């Protein structure tokens, strides 16, 4: 019987949130690729088409949730990978806060872009 092993300590909110966001992202990332490469070819994307899609409240909310969950999942994954490599002490704290600030800036900028895309700003 294989033993359980994971890059994460199997406890706490970061472990659980990494899996909850993974379930959401599996569906939304596949949807994003299908919509913007197969339904609409990437080479034919214009701001008018983007605005039309983002004007749908359901699509807009899905994309903002996509941004937030992908940012958390990605940055939390990077943080854990670095901890796996032995990051500890002051360096760990410094990296943590750099990643937190980078995440907040990314979500803020992404939300700002989304609000421009749907014509709100």
């Amino acid at each position, binding site marked *: 019987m294989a*033993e359980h092993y994971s890059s994460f300590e199997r406890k706490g909110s970061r472990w659980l949130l990494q899996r909850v966001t993974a379930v959401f992202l*599996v569906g939304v990332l596949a949807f994003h690729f299908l919509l913007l490469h197969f339904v609409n070819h990437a080479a034919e994307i*214009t701001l008018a088409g983007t605005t039309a899609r983002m004007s749908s409240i359901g699509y807009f909310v899905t994309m903002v949730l996509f941004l937030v969950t992908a940012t958390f999942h990605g940055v939390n994954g990077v943080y854990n990978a670095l901890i796996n490599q032995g990051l500890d002490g002051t360096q760990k704290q410094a990296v943590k806060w750099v990643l937190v600030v980078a995440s907040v800036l990314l979500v803020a900028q992404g939300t700002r872009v989304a609000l*421009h895309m749907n014509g709100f700003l």
Partner: protein
Amino acid sequence: MSQSYNRGTVEDFGRWRDFSAGMWAWIFHKFTGWVLVGYLFTHIAVLSTAIQGKDLYNGTLGGLEALLVVRFLEVGLLAVAVFHILNGLRLLFVDLGVGLEAQDKSFYASMVLTGAIVVASIPTFLGGKLV
């Protein structure tokens, strides 16, 4: 019960012949994760051209899509994303204790399915107007 698992040093590439399927899955999942999070920041930077209006947005996206190298990079991104999704599903099942005895086979299945989806998608990704 959860317990730590000594994978040795990843940077010790000299022992790659000794890696098991689960070790390769772990390495590929890390690699594709790093690529995807890097791309996320780049993606938002490119889409930020929408703030300056349609001329810059349409010109930037159209200009990038007109480059053959960008189309190939998109195929690479698709490969990375599809593997991360499929292996991620595998990891979710393993975390739930489902299919532990077949975790090596499910890794090989992830690889094969990723290859099939990427090959089938190449005509769509490379199609359309190029410079």
